[in-house]
């Protein structure tokens, strides 16, 4: 089946001819495969690696684009105000990490290790924050704990504008992410360990610290890393409720948008990249170790009823749910109250966005369009990429390299990615600059920003499909792409739908990745929330956030229904 090999006949092999020979030996479908891998690889290079390089370059240039070495960094580190932000950012991220991990662990413990009722409901409630832009909890906190706040007494005179507000809003915003990792960590345990402990009469405390915690430790570290990274890189929360408490994320915005000082913005961006990349590496390291934790002989754990424990954790989960629903509910009420706090009659006046912003409702339609494109185009590229990594037959090195590149976006904060795009795509000599200030660049940036999680989800789904399909189809001389469409795509439909929903919801809510990239024609709803809050139209900002939440919920319900339908149809196959 291989192409006739003629290069050896000459006896004079030019250097690299071995590779050439190997290329010639490829089948036609392998060429398609190679072209596909190269295309996606080139896209990731152009839309991730090169922009990041442009950011790095900008940080050592002056305003005129001349190389100036480390002068910008020197200037940065000699400015007390800016350096202060580093310690502010680290403090906030560290404390938020501790608090959110404690809460999420307890919550997840309730879900996985007790016999309390309503577990499914609690789980659904815990994912509410994913549906909202991070600005929403911050806005909501102003209504709850601000100077006119309904329960401001709980702060004992402390101001919500500052570190306290940032931390509470952050705990809300990152809770689902941390909680889900904790649930996974606590679910994968071996019941035999507990049976042994029980047989030996070990006290519960000891069991908890010698079995439960060590068993979940990798997940806990992973959750802590995610909490830290999400907190330090988020921009919406400190922008709305940070008051005079400056952090790295708001500094980038101030430098770039407020002062139009792009070089300094690049420097702050790189400073922000360090903790994010560092925690990312910790996470990778931990995940590698986790693989061998569960042996094949492990017995799944089933909690036994325990009155006191179950009641305590039920109470905790109820409290936590009240917190989560309370934040969302407050925002909903704030958006409906006619004139807070003096006229609390309900009306829809604040939903008349065109009255207060020239881009009002049109920014919402832009968001819908952007999120739709992101979901459809994103899932296509991500599926193909994951397919080639997992099911590709040749070019193992290239596939490995591509997989590594696909993991990188997780370590890059949205704000930094967006800024890198500005530097890379705005240069007129760059042929890709035609994308600049179009909807396309927003879509591309969002896909890249959320690439890693989608890629990994898809990879997991593909891994579950037996390799036999490829060997059978190959021996039947069916090209891989036909098998892919007939076998892999249908089987992966749940994962495809999952990734589409993930991309759509994130595209609706993201602010940080796109805040430097939008133009008047492509302004997004989440950006409008930010602008409305900036000019003091807080109720309208809350209203627009609620519109985003409603959209996300609709998409999620649609996804749920689709999954139910799919499961019904495929149940025969799955059994």
């Amino acid at each position, binding site marked *: 089946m291989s192409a006739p090999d003629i290069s050896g006949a000459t006896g004079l092999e030019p250097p690299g001819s071995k590779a050439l020979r190997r290329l010639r030996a490829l089948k036609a479908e392998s060429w398609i495969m190679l072209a596909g891998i190269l295309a996606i690889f080139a896209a990731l290079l152009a839309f991730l690696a090169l922009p990041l390089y442009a950011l790095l370059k900008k940080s050592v240039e002056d305003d005129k684009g001349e190389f100036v070495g480390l002068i910008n960094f020197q200037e940065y580190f000699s400015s007390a*105000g800016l350096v202060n932000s580093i310690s502010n950012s680290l403090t906030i991220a560290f404390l938020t990490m501790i608090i959110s991990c404690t809460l999420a662990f307890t919550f997840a413990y309730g879900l996985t290790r007790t016999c309390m009722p309503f577990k499914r409901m609690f789980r659904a409630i815990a994912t509410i924050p994913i549906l909202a832009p991070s600005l929403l909890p911050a806005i909501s906190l102003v209504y709850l704990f601000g100077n006119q706040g309904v329960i401001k007494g709980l702060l004992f005179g402390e101001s919500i504008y500052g570190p306290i507000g940032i931390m509470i809003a952050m705990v809300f915003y990152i809770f689902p992410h941390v909680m889900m990792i904790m649930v996974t960590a606590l679910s994968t345990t071996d019941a035999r360990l507990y049976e042994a402990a029980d047989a030996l009469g070990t006290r519960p405390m000891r069991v908890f610290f010698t079995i439960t915690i060590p068993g979940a430790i990798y997940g806990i570290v992973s959750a802590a890393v995610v909490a830290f990274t999400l907190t330090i890189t988020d921009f919406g929360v400190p922008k709305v409720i940070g008051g005079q408490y400056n952090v790295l994320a708001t500094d980038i915005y101030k430098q770039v948008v*407020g002062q139009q*000082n792009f070089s300094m913005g690049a420097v702050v961006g790189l400073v922000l990249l360090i903790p994010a990349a560092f925690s990312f590496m910790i996470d990778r390291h931990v995940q590698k170790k986790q693989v061998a934790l569960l042996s094949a002989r492990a017995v799944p754990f089933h909690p036994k009823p325990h009155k006191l424990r179950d009641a305590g954790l039920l109470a905790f989960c109820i409290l936590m749910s009240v917190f989560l629903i309370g934040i969302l509910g407050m925002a909903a009420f704030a958006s409906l109250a006619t004139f807070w706090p003096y006229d609390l009659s309900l009306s829809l006046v604040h939903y008349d966005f065109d009255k207060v912003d020239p881009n009002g409702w049109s920014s919402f339609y832009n968001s819908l369009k952007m999120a739709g494109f992101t979901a459809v185009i994103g899932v296509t590229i991500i599926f193909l990429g994951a397919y080639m990594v997992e099911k590709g037959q040749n070019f193992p090195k290239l596939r490995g390299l591509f997989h590594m590149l696909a993991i990188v976006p997780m370590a890059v904060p949205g704000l930094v990615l967006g800024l890198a795009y500005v530097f890379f795509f705005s240069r007129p000599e760059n042929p890709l600059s035609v994308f600049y200030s179009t909807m396309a660049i927003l879509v591309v940036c969002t896909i890249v920003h959320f690439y890693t999680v989608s890629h990994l989800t898809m990879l997991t789904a593909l891994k579950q499909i037996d390799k036999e399909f490829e060997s059978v189809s190959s021996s039947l001389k069916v090209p891989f792409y036909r098998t892919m469409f007939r076998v892999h795509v249908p089987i992966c439909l749940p994962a495809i739908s999952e990734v589409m929903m993930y991309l759509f919801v994130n595209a609706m809510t993201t602010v940080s990745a796109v805040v430097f990239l939008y*133009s*008047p024609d492509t302004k997004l709803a989440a950006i409008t929330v930010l602008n409305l809050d900036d000019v003091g139209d807080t109720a309208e900002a809350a209203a627009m956030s609620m519109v985003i939440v409603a959209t996300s919920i609709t998409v999620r319900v649609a996804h749920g229904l689709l999954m139910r339908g799919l499961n019904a149809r495929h149940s025969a196959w799955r059994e």
Partner: protein
Amino acid sequence: MKSGILKRLSLSVFGAVLAGSVFTGAAMSGELIVYTAVEPEELAGFAKAFEAKNPDIKIKWVRDSTGIMTAKLLAEGKNTKADIVWGLAATSLLLLKDAGILEPYAPKGVEKLNPLFVDGDKPPSWVGQRAWIASVCVNTAEAKAKNLPIPKSWADLTKPVYKGYIVMPNPASSGTGYLDVSSWIQMWGEEKAWKFMDGLHQNIGIYTHSGSKPCKMAGKGEFPIGVSFAYKGAQLKAKGAPVLTIAPSEGVGWELESFGLVKGAKNAAAAKKLADWSVTKETNVIYNEAYAVVAYPGVAKPVKFFPPDIGKKMIKNDFLWAAKNRKRILAEWTKRYDGKSAPKKK
């Protein structure tokens, strides 16, 4: 090095292209790109009124706070996508004129305007439209509940009784914030003015991004006192908020919302039409709906809920001085007050 944060605003070609291309909305004929700092809720009305007279032109607003618009325009330089800058502080337009971004043009009928409102050069590079005037918005209901005396002067605002109750716009991003700071320095001289601001800083709850937010916060009672401008206070009062708008006794700063054409604009013809429209008596009547002082003499009627004596309290404002010293003052302000303080305890 201390001016590090407020480093020279970039005028480079790179910066210009970069920021400029954010708005490649590609001016097709008939589409007029207007950079503005006018309050967003007013924009739709202005566009409608203008487009009714010029149905072949469609206005595309690019709106942000004064400070940000100014920085953006300076960074974009001659490569800006704007056809016209409309409703931006005269101080900022002076900076743009210096940077060679503006195209001098005498709109039809400009001679009828109050000459104090128009650039002295012939033809003028910028033309003032209406004045916005500093004021203090006080929430009377909250003041009563908290037993706060109604402040009468700027000096009153530094009294310890107001600790944590005052909000003010950040002058680096807000034009209203800058006109306050500039007016204090013009009235009292540097030393006394900075001393006053040190005292005021002790009472500030937070500094806001925009000039209207302090008044809106005062309206909701979030912070009972907002350093803002008269129009916003009057508008909120008209909507039913318990807001009293006060013109402090020492005098109040003010600024001219002004327009200027951009050199090499893609749609220069349409920009001129907007300029001509903007100086007509009719348009000045529209300006007067919200602002008490407009460029066309004899048009202005008192605006409801404005402080009655505010006209007399307007200081002698030296725009040229304010423009020349803007960068230095903002750098000093940022160094002193931005991010240096923890939020105030109540």
